[in-house]
């Protein structure tokens, strides 16, 4: 994972990621905007009570970005702020630190799709305006951003802890 994604500089109100995708720009755009259910970890990253079966971005400025549950219910995540097919997408991410929808939150996600090589795409991702989380900004930044070696170290620690607990 680490070689595929590089994190940017340290603006405390922004998390930046770059992913190199071996897919043409059209495909990368389509998968991101039309087939979110195929890759978004819906089992974990959802806010509704129902089992989430889809994540939808309505393809226009002002469109909704929402999850759909298996009971037909929907839960908003944000809105489309910029819609420039195959090149740029800006969404508001209006999910609070308590994982509730609040249209007033308005953190922003910008995704840029840039042709790279013959058939590749460089996807530049930024989640910004994290200052909107107020005094929970650092907590949320830690969750959104890669925790890097520190995170891996803790994961290894947790694994060891579980293994040793099992041996007891």
């Amino acid at each position, binding site marked *: 994972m680490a070689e595929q994604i590089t994190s940017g500089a340290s603006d405390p109100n922004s998390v930046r*990621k770059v*992913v190199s995708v071996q*897919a043409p720009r059209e495909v990368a755009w389509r998968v991101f905007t039309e087939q979110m259910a195929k890759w978004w*970890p819906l089992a*974990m*990253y959802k806010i509704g009570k129902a089992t989430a079966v889809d994540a939808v971005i309505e393809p226009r400025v002002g469109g909704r970005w929402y999850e759909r549950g298996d009971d037909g219910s929907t839960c908003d995540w944000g809105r489309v702020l910029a819609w420039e097919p195959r090149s740029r997408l800006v969404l508001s991410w209006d999910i609070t630190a308590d994982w509730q929808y609040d249209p007033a939150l308005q953190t922003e996600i910008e995704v840029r799709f840039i042709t790279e090589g013959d058939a590749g795409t460089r996807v530049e991702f930024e989640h910004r305006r994290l200052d909107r989380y107020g005094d929970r900004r650092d907590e949320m930044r830690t969750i959104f951003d890669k925790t890097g070696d520190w995170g891996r170290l803790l994961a290894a620690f*947790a694994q060891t802890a579980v293994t040793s607990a099992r041996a007891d």
Partner: protein
Amino acid sequence: MIHAERALDALGDRTRRRVFARLRNRSCSAGELAQGMNVTRSAVSQHLQVLKAAGLVVVRADGTRRLYQVDMRGVEVLRRWLDGFWDETLSAFKEAAERAANKARRS
């Protein structure tokens, strides 16, 4: 809201970690947990209260018994904290886009 730091603090104690690990496979009462652990039932109950406050376990009534089980929401918060939300999500996107591109090339 469950805070990752709170969950990590709760799991920082060895006995509490053992209590938590024993709940991974099935729900248990405090008494069942205490058996074979060399810890008193009341100590186990106290550990369960800390785990519950940290969002790692939930309790449900089963007749007259109180059964404790792992709260997956707390585990998810921990996992987000460890993995990094956007790294995991974007890695999944990369895989899906590359699968779609491979499929298009083959057809």
